[in-house]
């Protein structure tokens, strides 16, 4: 019998587990992207296709979609683990909960935020966003979606034990998403207007650090409450 794994090894295994679970079906990787693509396609249909109008609104639209995609995937972050008993096991584990929770959030971020950030330029071009604004778009999405993942995970942790959580997480979490939306879309708009973008990215970075430092505690507390409810 070799003993239990070290804390970092263990967190790494949880990360692999989450990624494997998500990627087990190849279509799963592409789904968020396709969702993103389709919703992007809805906007010209709903708002009318005038290119200049679309370009004006592209930062906002892309950020709103990223935010919704994040929200939707956050909802299920702990659900199956709650239902099949994995979450109780995690809470009983001798391993530090902070790191375990971090692994969950990291997996979520990689699979939604990072992925979306990477392909967002494609959709931005479809919405006629000038190429100059693309780097800011990617940078702001990368940082901002990290914050969203942490905040969304708090909501998910607090609602995972509720049998009708569905929309509740949106209520809890959307108000906290709003600053990220404002600074994220603001960064891209500033980039478009040729204004300095560093302050925006700095704010998003600060929010990200704050979320990473405090978020896991709130998530852990939420999970304990949910399992004990």
């Amino acid at each position: 019998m070799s003993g239990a794994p070290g804390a970092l090894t263990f967190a790494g295994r949880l990360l692999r587990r989450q990624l494997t679970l998500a990627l087990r079906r190849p279509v799963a990787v592409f789904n968020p992207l396709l969702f993103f693509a389709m919703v992007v396609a809805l906007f010209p249909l709903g708002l009318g296709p005038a290119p200049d109008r679309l370009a004006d609104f592209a930062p906002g639209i892309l950020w709103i979609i990223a935010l919704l995609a994040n929200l939707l995937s956050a909802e299920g972050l702990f659900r199956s683990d709650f239902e099949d008993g994995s979450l109780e096991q995690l809470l009983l584990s001798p391993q530090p909960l902070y790191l375990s929770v971090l692994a969950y959030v990291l997996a979520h971020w990689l699979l939604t935020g990072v992925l979306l950030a990477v392909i967002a330029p494609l959709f931005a071009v479809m919405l006629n966003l000038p190429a100059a604004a693309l780097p800011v778009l990617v940078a702001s999405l990368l940082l901002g979606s990290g914050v969203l993942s942490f905040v969304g995970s708090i909501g998910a942790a607090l609602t995972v034990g509720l049998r009708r959580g569905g929309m509740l997480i949106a209520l809890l979490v959307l108000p906290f998403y709003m600053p990220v939306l404002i600074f994220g879309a603001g960064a891209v708009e500033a980039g478009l207007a040729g204004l300095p973008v560093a302050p925006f990215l700095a704010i998003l970075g600060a929010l990200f650090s704050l979320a990473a430092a405090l978020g896991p505690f709130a998530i852990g507390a939420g999970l304990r409450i949910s399992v004990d409810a």
Partner: protein
Amino acid sequence: MRAAMWSFFHKLGSPPWLYRIAGSLLGWLLPLSLLALVTGLAWGLLFTAPDFRQGNSYRIIYIHVPAAVVALAGYYVMALAGAISLIWKMKMADIAMKATAPVGAALTFIALVTGAIWGKPTWGTWWVWDARITSMLILLFLYLGVIALYEAYDNKAAASRACAVLSLVGTVNIPIIYKSVDWWYSLHQPASIKFTGGSSIDPSMLYPLLLSIIAFYGLFSCALLGNMRAEILARETRTAWVRRLAGGEA
């Protein structure tokens, strides 16, 4: 001295004591607050001169502004109570938190509705996405989120802990939300509309407004105490003192 303080804290943890104290507090706070409200509103409605730009519609200020001010303060009361209940596991803080949410939500609602009504004659529209208004709308969402979360749990002890976590997360976030919305608005503010000109208020309008604000704080506290009393009862229905109370108050 220390013994006295200790016994005070001890009593604070005792439901029947709190129930009684809250009752007697209510006994004089409620009449006083109502008196302040009636005086302030009557003063504002009947005895002040109309604003030179807005005419009589400005009289809405005597309910609009107090509701907004107290609603915002209410969130901090709630979060503080949540923190206390989470950290020191104090039952009464927990009850206070649960009692604050509906009152705060109602005041936020009043601020928004009276604002919407004010906006129609003043700006010709029910709603604008101004920074203050948007932040207040978000505050309403925050309150409703806490209420919805509480209601969604069957296990009310767990519900309180969950709401405490949520309102704590909220306190960290409220300043961020406010700053971001302010900034967002100043970035986008359309040149054609200007609402936030530092309106210097005439003292004749200020006194009734201050009185009305005090009245709203008082009423907020009354609703809070009342809710706490009801909540204490709800949690203690099986205890002897409630049974005695029910028997006596026939």
